């Protein structure tokens, strides 16, 4: 009766608040009308509440999984951006501004993907928090409902119970509708994110993201490596040249002094005196003079036998 009166009033005024609440009430009433024995409604509803609670918890877990996946991808993109900046720095160090520019351009596009993911990460995080709170609230309501359900079943006859049941039922059904919508939204968002994350994963696996982020497969690194390699060769060359030019003047100097021959002969002389005969291996042949044999009577016997 109260609902009908409210319906009339709001239909005339058409406020958003009341229209939304009417939609919820209509839903609850429809479900209530289906029940033969109102007390059956309680058990049936309680089952549905438990199912919903499970669903919300699963929803929280799903959003968390999705969030972690985005986090992983953000790390990968960050590494890519760092690598590109490093390449740009090296290229600049080698005087290759063109290469540095190419690397920085790719870094910018990696960065923009990263920013995009960050925004989505934040929205998933917010969704996760909302659902967690919703799940706690629903749990409290479900507990309250169970208590009230038991009281109603124990205390009232079917006829008397009707009003009490309506109250309890519309209270919980509104909560369930609210939470149900929240889950729906979270599921949609998670599905979107997973499709997106899956696409990025595939791109990364195929190396095509390097294309998106970094043009051809690390051509910058190749060129840097080549340049580094050729500069290594140059460095080796100049080192060798340096050694040669450093030792050449010494020989000239030495020759001028006339001492170089003496110096050169000395190691030769050492070498000659070097290979002398090793000392005779006296100590190795254990002399029989060791009197220990007398302690062991069995051994001399063996030796003396033949």
């Amino acid at each position, binding site marked *: 009766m109260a609902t009908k009166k409210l319906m009339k009033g709001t239909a005339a005024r*058409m*406020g*958003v*608040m*009341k*229209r*939304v*609440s009417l*939609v*919820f*009430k*209509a*839903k*609850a009433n429809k*479900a209530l009308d289906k029940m033969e024995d109102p007390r059956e409604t309680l058990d049936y509803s309680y089952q*549905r509440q438990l199912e*919903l609670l499970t669903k919300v918890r699963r929803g929280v877990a799903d959003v968390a999984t999705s969030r972690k996946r985005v986090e992983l991808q953000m790390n990968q993109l960050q590494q890519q951006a760092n690598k590109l900046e490093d390449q740009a720095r090296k290229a600049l160090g080698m005087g290759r501004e063109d290469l540095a520019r190419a690397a920085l351009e790719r870094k910018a596009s990696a960065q923009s993907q990263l920013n995009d993911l960050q925004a989505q990460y934040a929205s998933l995080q917010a969704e996760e928090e*909302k659902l967690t*709170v*919703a799940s*706690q*609230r629903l749990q*409290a*309501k479900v*507990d*309250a*409902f169970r208590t*009230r359900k038991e009281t109603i079943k124990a205390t009232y006859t079917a006829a008397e119970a009707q009003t009490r049941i309506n*109250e*309890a039922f*519309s*209270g*919980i*059904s*509104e909560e*369930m*509708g*609210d939470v*149900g*919508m*929240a*889950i*729906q939204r979270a599921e949609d968002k998670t599905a979107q994110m997973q499709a997106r994350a899956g696409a990025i994963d595939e791109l990364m696996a195929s190396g095509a993201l390097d294309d998106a982020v970094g043009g051809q497969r690390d051509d910058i690194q190749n060129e840097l490596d080549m340049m580094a390699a050729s500069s290594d060769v140059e460095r080796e060359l100049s080192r060798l040249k340096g050694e040669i030019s450093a030792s050449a003047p010494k020989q000239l100097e030495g020759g001028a002094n006339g001492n170089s021959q003496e110096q050169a002969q000395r190691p030769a002389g050492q070498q000659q005196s070097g290979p002398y005969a090793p000392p005779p291996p006296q100590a190795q042949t254990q002399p029989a003079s060791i009197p220990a044999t007398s302690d062991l009577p069995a051994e001399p016997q063996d030796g003396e036998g033949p």
Partner: protein
Amino acid sequence: MIVRILGEGQYSVGDTATAELNRLDADLEKAVNSGDEAAFATALRALLDQVRAQGAPLPSDRLEPSDLILPDPDSSMDDVRKMLADDGLIPG
């Protein structure tokens, strides 16, 4: 009077706040009818802020139907239209 903000929970709001809430709700309704998304967002925020300012959160274990229900802060005008058009948005 109990007011629910969808996705947020229920508030117990004193009857003295009703007039102001109705005024803000009328703004919201006007925005929906005129299809003005920016005005809708502003009006919705004003209405929700008013509920939060005037109301006290209802304890989680209280099981009461709301007198008024408001869309959640992230709702677009389209979301609200869908919600009002049929019960398709509300599962169960």
